[in-house]
């Protein structure tokens, strides 16, 4: 069949002008790169990982380097992946100081019999892999805009 890919960049409650336009451009570019990968024979698992990694590296999105802070002023990330052919799942929850959480999620899916790793166990799992690790707190220090957006009030979801 024809390779196909779709992505979203998260919901927004207001139009933030030029930053919104840059977000659309960045999303389009990431999807085109993911599309090229599957057209060149990469399996969909690799295309999804690659496309999300590009978005995690872009500070316009609330993922990876663009992530918002939690109530303690830290960055904790969630990621998950599902292979629709094997129905295997891999996820990481509230993970810190990992360059690409989606890559770690993929490894949970492919290398373990488990579906979701969190906390110390997830860090230990990451430490045994060739997943780029960051110095403690570097994601929190990376993006000053995240500090500007930091809401220390209790969110509705908690």
């Amino acid at each position, binding site marked *: *069949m024809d*390779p*196909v*890919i*779709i*992505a*979203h*960049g*998260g*919901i*927004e*409650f*207001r139009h933030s002008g030029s930053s*919104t336009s840059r977000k*659309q451009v960045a*999303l*389009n570019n*990431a*999807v085109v790169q*993911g*599309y090229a990968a*599957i057209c060149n*024979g990469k*399996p*969909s*698992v690799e*295309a*999804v990982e690659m*496309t*999300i990694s590009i978005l*995690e590296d872009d500070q316009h*999105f*609330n993922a*990876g380097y663009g992530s*918002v802070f*939690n*109530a*303690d002023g830290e960055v*904790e*990330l*969630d*990621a*998950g*992946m*599902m*292979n*629709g*052919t094997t*129905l295997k799942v891999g*996820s990481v929850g*509230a993970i810190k100081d990992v360059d690409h*959480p989606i890559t770690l*999620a993929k490894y949970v899916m492919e290398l373990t019999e488990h*579906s*979701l790793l969190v906390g110390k166990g997830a860090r230990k799992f990451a430490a045994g892999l060739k997943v780029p690790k960051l110095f403690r707190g570097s994601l929190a220090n990376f993006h000053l805009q995240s500090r500007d957006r*930091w*809401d*220390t009030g209790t*969110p509705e*979801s908690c």
Partner: protein
Amino acid sequence: TVGVVAIDAEGRCTAGSSSGGGSGKMAGRVGSSAIAGAGFYADSSIGGCVATGHGESIMQSCLCFNLVDQMSLQAKSGQLAMLAVKNVVEAATRRFKKSVGIVALDCDGEFGVAFSAPRMPWAYCRRGKLRFGAESGENYVKDV
């Protein structure tokens, strides 16, 4: 949150999601991007989807599993992914009174996009054409 669904030339569907969660969330809170069936789901015989928005509502409604299940039922009646996506987003928004959004592919590569917030940037690529938009009704097309 960001999310991607892809189907390769072999018909293998994969869904993935990654998120920093909500600003000011409690430390240790895990959101829907890590929960299969909530923030993402894929079944190559039906299709796949990824969700964004209010994570607790997405988890409480098993939103993505629900959508893939709906797509399975609707495919039998010849309806497209788009209708299933709209129905599921409307139902979740009505029930939980929170904003959510979904992008989906069915196993034929047709897509669905729906969201109950003012904006959700999305992009879809197939047969050398890129479709994209962010606000309700937007569906721009360009060659890639």
